Every structure is written in C-alpha cells, then in structure tokens.
C-alpha cells in the first residue's frame, strides 16, 4: 500500500463546522449505532434463543411430570419465566460489547465526540429492548402450538414492563464493564456470580412455594422476583397487584441502572 495506491481527490469545501445536537438526537444516534450490527447480523439474536428453547423443550416435560399438571397449564406458568430468562442472558452480557470497544479504541473516540455521556449510556441501554421483544415473540410462537395461550393485551404490557427492566439491567451491565475496564474475567466473573442466584431466587425455573424461610426472604429482596410474577400475571390476563409491583420493580431497576450507568460513563476516560 503506497501513497500511489491512494489517489488524493480534491475534496470540496468542508461542511460548516459542527452544529449543536439535541439530547434526543444523540440518544437516537447511539441507539441506532448499537442496533445496526444486530440487524445486519441477526444470527446473534437467533443463537441466543437456542439455549432457552432447550430449557423449554427439556424442562417442560420434567415440570409436567413433577407437578402432574397438563402441558398447557405448565407452559402457562413456565413460558413467562423463560422469556424473562432469555432477556437476562442477553442484557446482562451486553457490557462485554462495550468492553471490546474499550479495548479497540472506539469507545475513547465516542468520549471525545460531542455526544453527551448520558446519551452514550441511555442509547446503548435502550437497544436492549429490541432483542428482548424479538426473542420473546419467537418463544411465544414456539409455545402456542403446544397449548400456551397468552392474553394479548397482557403480553403487550408484560413486554413493556420487561423492556423497562432490561434497559436498567443493560445499563448496569455497561456500568460493570466500565468499572472493571479491560478486565474480561472480572466482568464475566461478576456477571455469572450474580445472574444465576438472581434467576433461581426469582423462581424462574422452579416455583419457590414451600421454600425455607431464608430463601423466601432472599426472594422478596430480589427485584427480578416481582418482574417474573408480573409477567406471569399479565400474560395470563390477570391485572392485579403483582402486575403493579412488577412494573414498579422494573421502573426502579431502570432508574437505578441509568443513574449508575451514566455516572460510570462520566467517570470513564
């Protein structure tokens, strides 16, 4: 590659120097940038569904056998949990993408750009909504032929609640990446250590009925428990206190995540 290979064409006069942009514009840009590789290469989203499908296919017969209920009834209880689990896998690991960008240098470049620190965090976190909803719809589509019957309005609201939760969780995952910097094992160590206890305590795989008292207390502190309960209630078409508690837990997670995340982004250099 010599200088001769790169003909220098006379470039036209440069455009007017940078103009101010709104926060909404910035968030949109960051959101679009994050989403683009997923849209162009949807394999990652499809691949993410395979594992939960295994859970659905292998775990449901076990649950049917142990509870003695019908497959349809079991799916009614289990599918909302699988949808939440699926979103957890994707969102909690999203910080790893940022870690790669921190290593290669593109994160640093965005820090020098006029994009505000909060838009860098919010735009990224909002992107989590898209794979969450797509994957949830695939799971629903797979389960319906086996007797799963979601309440449509409930499903829509349930996915909205889940999306809000995922924005918060995604922001926390990014905050973790920013905190441990380029230390990959630290990121995965913390993520794995937290994810599985949270999942089990939320009663995603097995109901916590009849659990010892300390487990029940731990489960009550876990915000994910409320989100899972809300999904089950909403998808069954039950509009009760569970749905409200889940929406509140999701909103709190979202606010805490974005505040912590934006703070971590501001401290990033």
């Amino acid at each position, binding site marked *: *590659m*010599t*200088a001769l*290979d*790169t*003909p*220098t*064409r006379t*470039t*036209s006069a*440069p*455009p007017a*120097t*940078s*103009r*101010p*942009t709104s926060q909404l*514009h*910035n968030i949109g*840009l960051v959101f*679009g*940038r994050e989403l*683009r*590789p997923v849209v*162009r*290469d949807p394999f990652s989203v499809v691949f993410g569904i395979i594992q939960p499908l295994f859970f659905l296919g292998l775990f449901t017969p076990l649950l049917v056998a142990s509870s003695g209920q019908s497959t349809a009834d079991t799916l009614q209880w289990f599918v909302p949990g699988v949808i939440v689990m699926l979103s957890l896998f994707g969102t909690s690991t999203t910080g790893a*993408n940022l870690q*790669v*960008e921190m*290593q*290669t*240098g*593109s994160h*640093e*470049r*965005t*820090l*020098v*750009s*006029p*994009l*505000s620190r909060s838009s860098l965090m919010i735009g990224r976190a909002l992107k989590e909504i898209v794979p969450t909803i797509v994957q949830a719809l695939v799971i629903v589509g797979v389960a319906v032929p086996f007797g799963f019957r979601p309440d449509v309005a409930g499903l829509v609201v349930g996915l909205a609640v889940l999306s809000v939760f995922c924005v918060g969780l995604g922001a926390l995952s990014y905050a973790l990446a920013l905190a441990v910097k380029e230390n990959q094992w630290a990121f995965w160590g913390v993520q794995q250590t937290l994810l599985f206890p949270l999942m089990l305590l939320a009663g995603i795989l097995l109901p916590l009925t009849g659990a010892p008292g300390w487990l029940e207390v731990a489960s009550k502190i876990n915000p994910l428990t409320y989100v899972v309960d809300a999904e089950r209630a909403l998808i069954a078409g039950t509009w009760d206190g569970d749905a409200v508690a889940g929406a509140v837990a999701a909103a709190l997670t979202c606010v805490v995540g974005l505040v912590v995340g934006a703070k971590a982004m501001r401290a990033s*250099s």
Partner: protein
Amino acid sequence: MIETRGLTKEFRSGKKTVTAVKGLDLQITAGEMVALLGPNGAGKSTTLRMLTTLLAPTSGSARVAGFDVTSGQHAVRRAIGYIGQGNSAGHSQRVIDELVVSGRAYGLSRAEARTRADELLDSLGLGDQATQKVMTLSGGQRRRLDIAMGLIHSPGLLFLDEPSTGLDPQNRANLQEHVVDLRRKHGATVVLTTHYLEEADSLAERIVVIDNGKVVADDSPTALKSRHAGDRIAMTFSGRDHATHAAQRASAAHPAAQVTLDGAAVDVQVAGGAGLVSALITDLTAAGVAPATVEVARPTLDDVFLALTGRSLREGRTELRTDPTNRTTEEVAA
C-alpha cells in the same frame, strides 16, 4: 488555538503519587503543526488526553479552541478532531455506517455526512471497503479509516496520538501525506505525539520535546538541531600522530566545537559544521595533516534529545520500561 498554564496531572496508584505532567506551559497558534516528542512515559499522551477532555487536569488550566477543557468540555469536543492510539471505528460496524453516525454526532445532516464520508473514503483509498465490516479491514486500512473518522467533521484542530505506531513504513508515509494534505487544504492546526524522530522531523514545523512531564525544548526541527547538536564532521587520517595533530588544530580553530579523538579518527561536532568543512580541510592540508576521508553528518533529533536529557531517545524507551515508577505512569496513563 491552545494555551496551557501550569497544566499538571497526577496519578495515584496505591499510596504513591506519580506526576505524569508537571506544570506544562504551552502556546500553540492557529495553523501550526506541532509534534510533542518524547519517550514512552514522558507525559505527552497524558498531555494530549487532557487537551482532548479525556482526562481532567489535577491543577493548572488549558484552553483549547477558545474554551476551557474543564468548564467548556462540550465546546472543546465539538471543535476538535481526535485520532487516538486505537481504532476509532467499532469492529462489528460497517465502515460507512460508522462514518455517517460520527458525522451526525457533530451535527451534520445524514446527507452531508454521507457525502463527506464518500469523499474521505475515496481520497483515502477505502472506496471499495465502504460496506465492509471494520473487522475485515487490514491494519493499514483500519488506520486510514481512523483518519477518516477524525476528519469527518473537518475539524479546525486535529489531535493525533502516536498516529503511526504499528504501521509499516509505507502506510506511515501514506498517513503523513494525509496530515500534510489536511493542513494544505483546510489550514487546520495539527498537534501530534510521537516517539518517531523521523516523523516529527518530516511533519512538524515545531517540536516540543517533553521529558519527565516537562517541556525541555521547543523550536523548529532545524533550530533544535543546530542549537542543541551541531553537524558532525567525521575524518580519518593516515596515522595516530596525524590524527592527534589534526585534533589539536581543529580545537584551536573552533573553540566551540566538540572534538573527539579515537585512534586515527577525529570527530568534530559543531553548529553549522557543514559550512566549516572547506576551511577546516584547507587548514589541515596546509599543516601537512590532510584527512584521508571526510564525512559530514547532519544531526538527528536523537542527537538533540541526547544533548538535552543526556539520554538517547531510543535507549530511553528500554530504560523507562525497566523503571517501576515510569511503568506505573504508563499503565495509569494508558
């Protein structure tokens, strides 16, 4: 364009405080092309990171493009372009997408950003790579994409941090050409850090030598060389006695010169040496000690660095790596 007063950056690692930049005073006017030269760990990258708002100064102040780097962060960011040590474009993104998004972040419309991106890709020989993913590009192509990313909004002030590290000589020449081009066409101010002497020498009109977080010299490459390291006139003689005699005569004739005698060889290091060769040879020939061979070498910036700090820039790199204090600085600053 840039003005710093007592700019200082300290890093804490454990209980130790390492001062990477110590009270830096620097003035750069619009249109200048300045190289910050120094070994790794000298504080030049830390300086650049403070000027580009990536790091907050511990004390002192800096105004960049008319705005304070602390209170006017956002305005500084809008006014500058930055090409860092890493790759500016995300590896999973497509080349054209990254350029357009980056342009729009500076307020260009989608159409403006697209036009500008196409122009840059064309002029950087990346036209065929526009729809490729960044991770599929070669190292040289990625570096050229970095340049395009840094220029997408046609900044009036461009910072480059070790722009040619890891590039082969051809790509290095290519990059230098684009930087020169940017200035010629847009009259941009350019500030770069480097530890390549040749690069500083060939690109910059002004070199700021930084060592241990301080400016140790600040001048044009030519002036630095003639002031801090003269031309070297290397002569050999038919024998030791001739050489000894010649060395004595040279010393007497040019008291300012540094004369070294080594067997039958004599080195005369003196400012403007090239202009003195003729007279020196005539004088020696008249005295009956005509040199057998004569070679005149222009001083390099390495000679300048050696004269200023007592260390060679090249050796300096290995020395600094083994010094735990400086290693900490580098790690923290990295």
